[in-house]
């Protein structure tokens, strides 16, 4: 794999990134570095722009009418919004897991095989089987589903469905995984399993996670960025943000004093 960068190298860099939805400006001059091999948590109140930022990274905002981006956002130094960028290829490099588990109404096997098939990643059935098993293994789901791979993905429990979506995301060997509140629909046990998984995935992927759970951000991430009204108020090592934030807005938000 050539995309492996030493831990700590800047993987994604935003410089003066601004995003508009029609007249409304959702992000103002964001300057933010996301480092390879780390989990970066984006926190902030609803409507602060954290999900908008997340969705810029794989150009999901392209699908929103009237959305416009200014400034620069780079992946390994290349502009994500360059005209020459193939968005389908970009999304293969930048996978995404959503708030609500959204498996396809297909078998467990086909859910995971879907991406590798459309990207032509396997030359034969044996290779495809390998990718599927590997991805399920990495997502910590293989043991629970290996004897029922032909059953529908939707027959799994919520927590299993979410790990199936993670397996589906990693099946195309992305470099980055974006997670938009991946545990908000899960019970504490399923949440713990996903968090444990995030920690393991960090070895092979760069992860950016949006979460409303302060404890979750504190538990899973190495770096945390606090967003407020479309701006990054503070970014730092997670430990520092949660024990000794430098900005009063950050302090107010994480201690539950937001006015």
């Amino acid at each position, binding site marked *: 794999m050539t995309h492996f960068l030493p831990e700590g190298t800047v993987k994604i860099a935003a410089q003066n990134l601004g995003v508009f939805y029609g007249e409304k400006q959702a992000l103002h001059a964001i300057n933010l570095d996301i480092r390879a091999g780390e989990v970066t948590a984006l926190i902030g109140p609803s409507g602060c722009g954290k999900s908008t930022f997340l969705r810029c990274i794989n150009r999901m905002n392209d699908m929103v009418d009237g959305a416009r981006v200014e400034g620069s956002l780079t992946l390994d130094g290349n502009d994500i919004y360059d005209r020459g960028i193939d968005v389908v290829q970009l999304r293969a490099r930048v996978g995404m897991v959503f708030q609500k588990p959204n498996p396809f109404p297909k078998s467990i096997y086909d859910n995971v095989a879907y991406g590798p098939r459309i990207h032509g990643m396997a030359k034969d059935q044996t290779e495809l089987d390998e990718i599927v098993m590997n991805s399920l293994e990495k997502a910590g789901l293989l043991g629970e589903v290996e004897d029922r791979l032909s059953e529908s993905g939707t027959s799994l429990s919520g927590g299993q469905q979410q790990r199936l979506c993670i397996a589906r995301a990693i099946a195309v060997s992305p470099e980055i995984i974006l997670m938009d509140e991946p545990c908000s629909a899960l019970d504490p046990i399923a949440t713990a399993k996903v968090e444990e998984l995030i920690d393991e995935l960090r070895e092979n992927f760069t992860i950016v996670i949006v979460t409303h759970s*302060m*404890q979750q951000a*504190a538990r899973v991430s190495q770096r945390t960025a606090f967003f407020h009204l479309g701006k990054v108020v503070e970014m730092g090592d997670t430990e520092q943000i*949660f*024990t*000794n*934030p430098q900005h009063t807005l*950050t*302090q*107010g938000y*994480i*201690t*539950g*004093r*937001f*006015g």
Partner: protein
Amino acid sequence: MTDHTVKSYDEELAHLTGIIARMGGLAEAQFTSALHSLVKRDDELASRVVAGDQRIDEMDHEVQSFAVRLLALRQPMAADLRLIVSAMNISGEIERVADYAANLAKRALILNHLPASVPVAGVARLAELVRSVLKDILDAYIERDVEKAIRVWSRDEEVDAMYNGVFKELIDRMTEDSGAITASTHLLFIAKNIERIGDHATNIAETLHFQIVGTPPQGERPKGNTVGVPQ
């Protein structure tokens, strides 16, 4: 700082710091009474100090268990987290201060029944200094005054210097008059315990600095020599 969205959380934090404020006041009073019982040779007062220590121990337990409850139920962050962790720490320091006050009273009970052959003025002066340091740090806690905490922190050297003076006086006394050895030795322990109270005040200052600012005080604390030997 503005209030929490959940009001009962504010009340709980205020309850926690309230116990510490009362505990600090009580420990200060215990120390003062212990000192009076020594200077005025008052057995009754000394006995009351010895008995009063239990109340402070109970308050320390109250702080520890209430803080654990807050940690579990509120999952505090940042300044709240530092306040709660510091409360546990400071409560422990105050409990130690009270222990030393009780020990002073116990020794006063013994000294009161020995001939008044050794003057206690030196020890009383040291105690007066440490009492003002202790009062300042407890005020700083209540007022969340980090400047005051730093001033207390840097005053420990003064305490150490005076302790060394008292130490030397008592040794001289024992050298001159072997009949004064018992009383002088008790006074020596008392002086050491008072100096320790000063150390605990310094520890509270450090914890308070962390609570308010998020880091321990910067730089090396000015330290005197506390082994009683001139440097």
